[in-house]
């Protein structure tokens, strides 16, 4: 499994190169990869279906409990097969859809990156690696939505998707860590057996809230649903793959995965049912208010995701069984319909429902795929969607205080699904029309084959539910429930209440379709409501953030060196004052005053040289005078070094001081007249700051000197510099012998400075050039 993921990443980054070599045939290797992983997973399937959970462990950062742990049970297998199987078709489809696009190589890179990340997400057996793959899918989704980066709308949609899912991702990380603490393990297989321990832990509630936030943003649940319709800015292969079948189901996968760990509590059940229910209704309602094919599909996807979350929330065996069946059925027909919408868009240049009509003649195969998928979506016999819908109704009608509410939700969405299915699967293709929409180019094999294959899969699964599908879904449900399941899928359940309700749904759905135009006329009335919707909130928040950040940056990073320095110094003073205030030693200066009598004449003379020099320095208006005064101060300090037994330091100081004066005079004679530029108002502030800084430094020295210096270095060098270093000048021996490497570093610094100076002196710039 590790190898499969590694191969995926490698191939992803090889895609641009492959495109250069293979041209339009690049889809062959790109489709072969998911296909071979699909086959590989099929070879593992018998073991998993037989009741085993496969694991594979690679140590990554064991000390942090982060491991590349892969874990394959029924649930992961279902998702992994969906990802790779559908992935194969999408890779083919993308080759046809973006044929001749100059950036096709890059597109494949993103797509393969996403596919592999998604595969990693469902196979990961360590909750930290789940998070890593989770974020990778968000990032690759961002890149894919923003693929048409020359369009502003595409960029802002991509950013919106990234911000919303990224925010959820952050919450998820915190939640997963809390979960890891509560369950005392970061390994999924451990956690699966510790459900009671987790749910009774005090951290359960915060962990739950955070994890749900992550899952809801990813799966576009209310109130985070708004990013998904905007994500339709992506090329259609992306919408079909990421935003209907795989990535948006990552949230559902996470909820399903954690059902045995965190599920079963009231908080879990009611939150999921409430949020899922609202999302289902809202998605279905909004789907009837749009004319853009992809927008309609996006809203029905939101509705379907809501249903999946609701079913997960109910959490009973029939509900989870319905969940997995509907998940598979939805992926099959919704993926197909997206590709159909893409084909129509590609061939006719429009996605407007009202402009499209009578396409069955010119786009025969696409039309067949659309019909098959539409019938599955509407829940007709003998399609897989029919089984899904029956189970949904059955599950929502179970004994529960909310049974009628839950049923109403799924019934309403079912009705809308039927209407949408008729419009897309029948309306634009098969309804007789005197003036069919004209095509810009005929249907292509690479474009109609993948949806046709996917739609037929829906039919085959419906006709033969017992073959492979049932055991797989049963194992997936077992992974959520933790106990063995015995359900069998069958197409025909006999004449019962549920069948009657199905028929009623169909009839009402047809009515809805007939009156859809009238419904659409109400759309304008919603515009006022959108002002209070989450999409607008998001817009306002984003604007506010940008304005706030600009303001803060303009204040903090104002470009004036002195305010930076003032801030640093102020913070420094504040820190020292606080720490001295809290537990600092007291200064005892009174009993040290007698020391003053030991002052010698020449020491006083030095003081008398430095302090008046400073005063002159501040009063001087001539540059040359200032330089001379600096020299005086430097020399005075050098004399001071001599007095206290540091002749080498003094010599260096004298030398450097002389050099500085020379350079100053050489370089600066060309500068303009010397002016005072300080603001009068600021001057007092800076005087105060400087004085307090100086006072603080004085205070520090006085405090430090109250305590004896405990250093063995002095004695060590005193004893050894002649014996070990063969030198009598201890300072010299330290510099060139004991710490010779440091001196080498110093030389390097000087050399670098010299190179910099040379560069600046030699650099010739054009007039008006800015650095």
């Amino acid at each position, binding site marked *: 499994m590790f190898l499969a993921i590694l191969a995926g990443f490698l191939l992803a980054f090889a895609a641009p190169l492959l495109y250069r070599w293979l041209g339009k045939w690049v889809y062959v290797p790109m489709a072969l990869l998911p296909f071979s992983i699909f086959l590989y997973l099929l070879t593992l399937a018998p073991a998993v279906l037989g009741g085993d959970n496969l694991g594979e462990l690679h140590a990554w950062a064991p000390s942090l409990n982060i491991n590349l742990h892969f874990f394959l049970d029924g649930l992961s297998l279902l998702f992994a097969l969906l990802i790779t199987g559908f992935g194969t078709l999408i890779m083919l489809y993308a080759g046809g859809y973006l044929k001749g696009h100059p950036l096709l190589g890059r597109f494949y890179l993103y797509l393969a990156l996403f596919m592999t990340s998604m595969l990693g997400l469902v196979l990961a057996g360590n909750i930290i690696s789940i998070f890593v793959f989770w974020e990778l899918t968000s990032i690759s989704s961002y890149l894919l939505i923003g693929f048409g980066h020359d369009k502003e709308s595409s960029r802002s949609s991509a950013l919106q998707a990234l911000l919303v899912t990224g925010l959820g991702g952050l919450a998820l990380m915190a939640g997963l860590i809390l979960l890891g603490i509560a369950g005392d393990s970061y390994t999924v297989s451990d956690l699966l057996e510790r459900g009671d321990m987790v749910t009774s832990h005090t951290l359960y509630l915060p962990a739950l809230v955070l994890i749900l936030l992550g899952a809801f943003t990813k799966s576009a649940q209310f109130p985070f649903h708004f990013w998904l319709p905007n994500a339709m800015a992506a090329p259609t292969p992306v919408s079909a793959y990421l935003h209907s079948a795989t990535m948006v189901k990552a949230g559902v996968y996470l909820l399903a995965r954690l059902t045995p760990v965190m599920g079963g509590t009231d908080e879990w059940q009611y939150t999921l049912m409430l949020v899922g229910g609202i999302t289902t209704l809202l998605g279905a309602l909004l789907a009837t208010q749009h004319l853009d094919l992809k927008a309609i599909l996006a809203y029905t996807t939101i509705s379907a995701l809501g249903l999946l979350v609701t079913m997960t929330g109910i959490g009973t065996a029939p509900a989870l069984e319905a969940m997995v069946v509907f998940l598979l059925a939805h992926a099959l027909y919704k993926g197909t319909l997206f590709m159909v919408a893409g084909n129509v868009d590609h061939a006719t240049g429009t996605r407007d429902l009202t402009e499209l009509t009578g396409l069955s003649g010119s786009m025969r195969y696409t039309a067949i795929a659309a019909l098959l998928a539409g019938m599955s979506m509407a829940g007709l016999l003998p399609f897989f969607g029919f089984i899904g819908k029956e189970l949904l109704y059955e599950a929502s009608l179970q004994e529960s205080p909310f049974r009628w509410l839950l049923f109403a939700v799924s019934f309403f969405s079912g009705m809308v699904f039927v209407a949408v299915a008729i419009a897309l699967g029948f309306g634009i293709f098969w309804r007789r029309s005197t003036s069919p929409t004209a095509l810009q180019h005929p249907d292509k094999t690479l474009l109609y084959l993948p949806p046709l294959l996917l739609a037929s899969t829906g039919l085959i699964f419906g006709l033969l539910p017992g073959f492979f599908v049932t055991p797989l879904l049963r194992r997936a449900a077992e992974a959520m429930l933790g106990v063995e399941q015995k359900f069998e899928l069958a197409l025909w359940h006999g004449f019962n209440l549920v069948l009657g309700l199905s028929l009623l749904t169909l009839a009402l759905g047809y009515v809805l379709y007939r009156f859809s135009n009238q419904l659409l006329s109400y759309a304008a009335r919603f515009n006022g409501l959108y002002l209070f919707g989450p999409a607008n909130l998001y817009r306002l928040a984003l604007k506010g953030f940008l304005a706030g950040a600009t303001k803060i940056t303009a204040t903090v990073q104002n470009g004036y060196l002195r305010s930076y320095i003032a801030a640093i110094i102020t913070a420094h003073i504040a820190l020292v004052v606080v720490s001295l205030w809290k537990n600092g030693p007291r200064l005892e200066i009174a009993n040290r005053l007698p020391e003053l009598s030991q002052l010698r004449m020449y020491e006083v003379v030095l003081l008398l040289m430095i302090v008046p020099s400073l005063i002159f320095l501040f009063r001087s208006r001539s540059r040359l005078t200032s330089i001379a005064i600096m020299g005086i101060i430097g020399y005075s300090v050098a004399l001071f070094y001599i007095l*206290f037994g540091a002749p080498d330091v003094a010599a260096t100081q004298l030398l450097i001081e002389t050099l*500085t004066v020379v350079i100053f005079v050489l370089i600066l004679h060309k500068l303009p007249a010397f002016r005072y530029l300080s603001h009068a108002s600021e001057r007092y502030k800076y005087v105060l700051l400087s004085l307090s800084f100086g006072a603080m430094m004085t205070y520090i020295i006085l405090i430090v000197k109250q305590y004896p210096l405990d250093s063995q270095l002095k004695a060590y060098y005193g004893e050894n510099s002649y014996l070990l270093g063969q030198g009598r000048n*201890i300072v010299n021996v330290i510099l060139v012998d004991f710490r010779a490497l440091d001196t080498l570093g110093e030389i390097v610094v000087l050399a670098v400075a010299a190179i910099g100076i040379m560069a600046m002196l030699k650099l010739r710039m054009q007039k008006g050039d800015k650095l």
Partner: protein
Amino acid sequence: MELILPFLIGILFSASLYLILHRHFFKLILGLILFGLSTNLFLFVIGRLTRGGSAIIGQEEKVATEPFADPVPQALLLTAIVIGFGIQAFAIVLIKRVYQSFGTTDLDDMSTTDQIEDNH
């Protein structure tokens, strides 16, 4: 002297910081040089003062005898002074270069790269 020096160092620090906070590039350099000087003195004083004996071993002896000055701060200072000189030389050339390119030595005129336009 041990009691006077801390105050002298404080005065030097104050003066240098005040110079650094000026708008004029030339004053900034003066401030930097003075700040380096103050820091060196600060280190030297913190490392204790020894009157008389320097850190040199006499001709007839094999080990240093008290009183001799602590060689460690001195070695540090030597390095600091030299590196400080590197910085000074660089800054002096920089100011010349900046004046040639921008025609100003006013630091406030050089703040554009860091400024964000408010009406963005």
